[in-house]
Structures are given as C-alpha cells and as structure tokens.
C-alpha cells in the first residue's frame, strides 16, 4: 500500500477518535451543569414551600402560645430573611435560621398539651419536618452533583476539555452540622 495513504488513514482515525472523546466530554459537562442548576431549583422550591407554610403555623399557634413572643418573633424574622434572600448561600443561611427558630418553637410546644392535640398543628409539624428533610436532601444532591462536575473537569482528560470550554469548578453549599432530630426538652 502507498505509505502516504496509510498515514492519511491513521491520521483520520486519530482525528475521529479525538472528536468522539470531545463530543462525549462536551455532553457530559453540559449534562452535569444542567443537573446542578436543576437541583438548585429543587432547593429553591422547597425553601419557598416552607416559607409558605409558616403563616399557617403562626395562625394555629398564636391562640395557644400567649407567652412565647420571642420564639414566635424569631420564626417570623427568619421567614422574612428567606423571602428577601438573593444568593444561594444567603438563602441557605436564612433557612438555617428558620430551622433553629422552628426547633425551639416545637420544643416549647411540648408545654401546651392542647396544642399538641390539635390535628392542624400536628399536620403542619409533619409537613414542616418533611420540607426540612427535603431541603437537607436537595442540598445533599446539589453537593453530590457539584462533586461529580468538579471531578469531571478537574481530572485528566476532562481538565483539558474544560479549559477549552472555559469552565470553572463550582462551589459546594456549606451545610451546618446539625442533628436531624428535634431536640428533646425537659422542663
């Protein structure tokens, strides 16, 4: 065979392989980026949902808790912090505030047997705990997605393609070390 033809074939094969790898990495990077954005919107949805539940809770609780003004105020404050938050980290910080405020509210509620027997209150408590868990898991998924993304664009050969697509690593959300269960309070 003509050696020139042979070289041409080899070059074409190499170019084709390179193009395939580039294609694969391009799609992978875009896919993981979309996944990160999507999991952020998940967190956002849950945060909003939780903030929406608060007025209902306040309405139910107000009649029973006459002497717990500070506890109630903290919840309202945290809620308005969520509503006015702009960046993801601000959002998360406000949400942590709300989690703390709700924790003390539910702890204090142990002192009000009438309130504990209220079906509406129980349902709200279940649902708020549920949204809180959902937020925790969506953050976890967000961070998992960011980790996968960073791993892709920081290891070889992904790092090479990522540079050409001018992609940078993303920040993970800082999650506070907090126990999932409500604190047991004794009086």
């Amino acid at each position: 065979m003509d050696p020139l033809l042979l070289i041409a074939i080899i070059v074409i094969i190499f170019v084709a392989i390179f193009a395939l790898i580039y294609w694969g990495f391009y799609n992978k990077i875009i896919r993981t980026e979309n996944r990160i954005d999507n999991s952020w919107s998940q967190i956002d949805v849950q945060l909003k949902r939780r903030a929406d539940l608060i007025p209902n809770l306040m309405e139910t609780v107000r009649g029973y808790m006459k002497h717990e003004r500070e506890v109630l105020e903290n919840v309202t404050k945290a809620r308005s912090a969520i509503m006015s938050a702009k960046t993801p980290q601000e959002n998360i910080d406000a949400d942590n505030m709300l989690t703390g405020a709700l924790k003390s509210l539910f702890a204090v509620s142990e002192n009000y047997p009438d309130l504990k027997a209220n079906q509406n209150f129980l349902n709200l408590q279940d649902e708020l705990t549920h949204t809180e868990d959902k937020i925790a898991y969506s953050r976890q998924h967000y961070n998992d997605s960011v980790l996968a993304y960073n791993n892709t664009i920081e290891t070889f050969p992904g790092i090479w393609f990522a540079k050409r697509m001018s992609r940078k690593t993303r920040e993970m959300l800082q999650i506070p070390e907090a126990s999932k269960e409500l604190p047991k309070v004794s009086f």
Partner: protein
Amino acid sequence: MGKRILVEDQIRKNKQLTVLICAFMVLLFMGVIFAFGYIYFNNIYIALAFGLPIALVYVGITYSFSVQTVLSAAKARPANHKVREEKLLIYKVEEMAIAAGLPTPKVYVQESENINAFATGKKPEKSVICVTTGALHKLKTDELEGVIGHEMSHIKNHDILIATVTIAVVGTIALISEILFYSLFWGGAGRGRKNEGNAILLVIAILFVILAPIFSRLTYLMISRRREYLADSNGAYLTRNPEGLAKALEKIKTDHPKGKPRGSKTVAPLYIANPFKRSASSKGSIWATHPPIDERIRRLRSM
C-alpha cells in the same frame, strides 16, 4: 471490625464485578447457542437464527408484564394519604427520591406482618416502591429511611431491568438445553456428522449444554447478591447513615412472624430480604438470592 471502606469505592467495585459477571453470562449464552448449532445442525449460524429471536421475545414478554405481575402477586395497594403512618412513608419516599435525583416513585403498601419492601418498575420514571405494613409498624424513622434508600438504589441502578433480563436469559438457556436433550434421546441429532469423527469436541459440546443451565442459574444468583450489596452501599450513600439500614436488617433477622409469605418468587431478588427463605440468613449459600444478612450488616457497619 475490618478496615473502613469508602462508600464510593465499594460502589465502584460492585459495579465492576457486575459487569464482569454479566459478561460471563453472555459468554455462557453464546456458548450454548454455538454448542446447540454444532451438535444439532453442524452449523452455528442456524442456531443463532433460532436462539436469538427466542431469547429476545422471552425477554420482551417478561419485561412488559413485570410491574403488574409483581404488584398483584404481592396483593399490594396504593398508600393512603389519610393514614399518618402511610403519609410519613410517602414523605420519606419523596425525600429519598430527591436525594437520588430521581422522579418520585409511586408508593404501595402490602398487608403483611413481615418486615419487607421491594421496588419494581421498568424505568426510573415509572417505578413503584412497596413496603409491608409490618415494616411500617416495627421500624423506626431512620431504619425505614435506610430501607427506602436501599430500594431507591435498586431503581437508580436499573436492577429491575437487570433482574428481568438475566432471568429471561437463564430461562432461554434452560429451554435450549432441554430441546437439545430431547433431540439427543430421539436420535435426531448429529445429522451429517458421521464421517467427521471429532468425537471429543462433540462430547465437550454435549457436556457444556448439560452444565450450562446450572452455571447460568448460579451466575444469575451471583449477580443478584452482588446487586444487593450495591444497593446497600448506594442506599447508605443516599441517607448518609449506614447504621439505619443496618439496624433495620437486624430487626428483619430476629423478626419471624407467623403466617405464610406472599408474593412472586421471581421477584424475590427485588425484596430487601428474601421473603421465602428466612432460615438461610445466617450462612451464605450459592443458591441464595440474597447475601447473608450478617455479612450485609458487617459491611454496612464498616463504611
């Protein structure tokens, strides 16, 4: 306690092993078809033309009926939002789906005193998680979470697909070797090979066809056990709490209610613990669908 293993590493190791075992399964399948062709027609292509369509149709049929068959065999009903226990179950499934980044599966409940759960569905977008009432009564929140994480991982790993396809392949291998058996007895085989005299090769082919169904069944069980470990470690990764599932498994081990288990034996691999064989939980058998519970607990605790 052994050395601590990163959950991510265990997941990767498990996946690699599954690929290896599946490759062996494919080799067995091709081998049977070739042996069949060699013995029966002296032509492997004719066998290929018969074997592949049979296998594909079989897989297709089992696959398309899988969800309904499983649910009706278990006599499962959709979870009721009005009962608090079942509402909290639905909540937990939603949370785990978020953690796994999957659409929320439908939630079903099976009336049974046993602690058990299974997942089914053809693809992650249309999946079902079913939990027994026994599990709802007897498991604490973090234990239930561990169980649901395990089932969610079965869905995420496409284990339902792997199980149905491997079952179908095992069935096809058994079918082919049976056909061959009968034809050997009725003297139909070996047409046109009298003068070739390659007796050793023929004997090897026949032996292979006899042993293949046994091997394929064992391979299938090996895959099933492998997937259990994988779902355990994936589930622990989702909940970030291996202890929850470990405690749930401990409860399953010691809990032996009266009454017969219900459900389809084919889907036994999809349950969190085999509902039909409780006594075999202490020692590992090569015929078991699930790894021994003690070993699963040990691995979870070493994460």
